[in-house]
């Protein structure tokens, strides 16, 4: 009969009237974010970065600016470049994640936040200091090693640089560990990828491995 479907429609709306709303009240409630979420505040590990500027070259918008100079400390040990400028103009960033995809050394990660703002576009240029100090909650986007360790950045567990690399690149970790920094074992429940004990903190600059690793990384990223 005419009008029956309209009555049915009224019933549908009435049924939904009684349902729990599917929207959430944003600042208090949040929808669940997924570990691969490509968010703001890039996570950058200076210890891993070689200054190769692959990210800058691969950025479709060209918003990453990198200036390096040859390092004086230990050029023979592989510490070839020192980063002077690492600016990301995040106000123009579209979070496509291609810079992360291009990084051969697992030094750059997408962040997991989305709530940053500034009064001017200039204020949204992230410089190297901000990148250094930023909270290290890397997204698992394009980082299968983090995903297989079922790391969830939304749980607020910061990751140290030694924990985020692919296993095949432990040379990097070993070498850098000996050279510049002591990896912090401060957080015992920190998730670590691969075997954490092996080669950590060992001062053993191994020059041959660098080249070998270089070829590996070239293959890995293709």
């Amino acid at each position, binding site marked *: *009969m*005419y*009008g029956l479907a*309209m009555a049915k*429609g*009224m019933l*549908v*709306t*009435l049924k*939904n*009237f009684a*349902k729990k*709303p*599917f*929207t959430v*009240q944003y600042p208090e409630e949040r929808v669940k974010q997924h570990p691969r979420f490509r968010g703001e505040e890039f996570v950058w590990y200076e210890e891993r970065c070689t200054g190769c500027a692959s990210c800058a070259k691969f950025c479709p918008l060209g918003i990453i600016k990198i200036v390096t100079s040859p390092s004086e400390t230990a050029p023979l040990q592989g510490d070839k470049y020192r980063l002077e400028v690492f600016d990301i103009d995040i106000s123009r960033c579209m979070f496509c994640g291609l810079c992360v995809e291009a990084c051969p050394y697992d030094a750059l990660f997408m962040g997991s936040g989305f709530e940053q703002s500034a009064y001017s576009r200039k204020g949204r240029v992230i410089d190297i200091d901000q990148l250094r100090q930023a909270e290290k909650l890397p997204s698992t986007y394009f980082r299968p090693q983090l995903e297989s360790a079922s790391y969830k950045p939304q749980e607020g567990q910061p990751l140290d640089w030694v924990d985020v690399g692919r296993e095949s690149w432990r040379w990097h970790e070993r070498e850098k560990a000996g050279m510049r920094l002591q990896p912090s074992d401060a957080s015992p429940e920190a998730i670590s990828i691969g075997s954490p004990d092996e080669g950590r903190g060992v001062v053993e600059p191994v020059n041959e491995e660098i080249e070998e690793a270089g070829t590996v990384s070239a293959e890995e990223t293709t």
Partner: protein
Amino acid sequence: MSCHLAEGNILHDTLMYRVVYDFVCPVLPAWLSYLVAGLAIMIILVNMVLLGAAVFVWAERRLLGRFHNRIGPNRWGPFGLLQPIADLIKLLTKEDLTPANADRITFFAVPIVMVMPVILVLAVVPFAKDTALANLNVGVLYILAVTSLTSVAIFMAGWSSNNRYAMFGAIRGVAVLISYEVPVVLCLLGVVMVAGSMSLSGIVAAQTVPFLLVQPLALFVFLAGTSAELNRTPFDVAEAESELVAGFHIEYSGVKFALIQTAEIGGVLTACAVTATLFLGGWSGPAASYLGWLWFGIKVAIIAFIFVWVRATFPRLRIDQLMALAWKFLLPLSMINLLATTLEVYFLRSDQGVLSTNDLWIMSGINLVVAVTSIALFGILIRDKVRPSKPTIPAGAVAPAALGEVS
């Protein structure tokens, strides 16, 4: 000098007026007491409309939110109750624009002309026993006369804005308002006939059986007609957000816009109040002399909920379909109702011309049958024009050669 309103005075029946008059009478001269009492109930009335509109705005937004399966405004105040105040502050602080080539005087007059009928209509509605602000003996006629002012206001808005969208909206609005007056008047005739009175208090008193049951067809036509007159979906062609952006009030901003919104929302409330009075028995209910206002409020809320519910569910009709609905569907229905009611009243009434409660029950039985049959009949008559003929899903795709055959 007696300090009480004389028994024969026309204003004596109005409880609120009488109370105020009796209160000020000992201190003031009689003519001033009349004036003060009049002003007092005017202030009550205006504030009632404003407050009612504010609450209804909040309620409608919350309800619509729930119908949409979302939350609705809940930030400002408990449950978002202060939201209308926030809206009002926003609207009051906005720049009040007048288009360069607008007819300034008419443009300025529109909000006033729009708000006026809404407030005036409420004056005759009894909120509780003896609490109508003016107990007119031609209440129904008065309501119909006053509400038709809105069409003038809509056309003034459309014409003076010097905007083609506004003009479109105004022409549509006037066409709709004038068309829907007819079925609404005819279905109210039935109510008046059964009640034997045109005064709203009289109609309430006559409802020993709610007219919802006695006049179901009239209620249906009245609800459809009023929601068309109030520009609410599915009949909101004059505003038609997706077509005309805002229709006749597209150029209004700031305070004027706030007034127009008040008029529209107040109009809905008024319509609810009138419907509750005419069809749901107004303030009558258990312990009506004390709790009349409560029953009245509950009935208004129920009708308002139905208005919002309908608004949340249906798409808009096109203007020609809307006209067709008025003239080809609602008008015949109200005629049928009128005919049935006339015959029933003619045969059932006593020699004094009074209908007893039993008569009303008999009438409600007959009218329910009449309503269902006539709506079903019309449904079947229209069905062929809108029946969905189901398109088919072919088992596989047509071979590319088919393209050659077709083109």
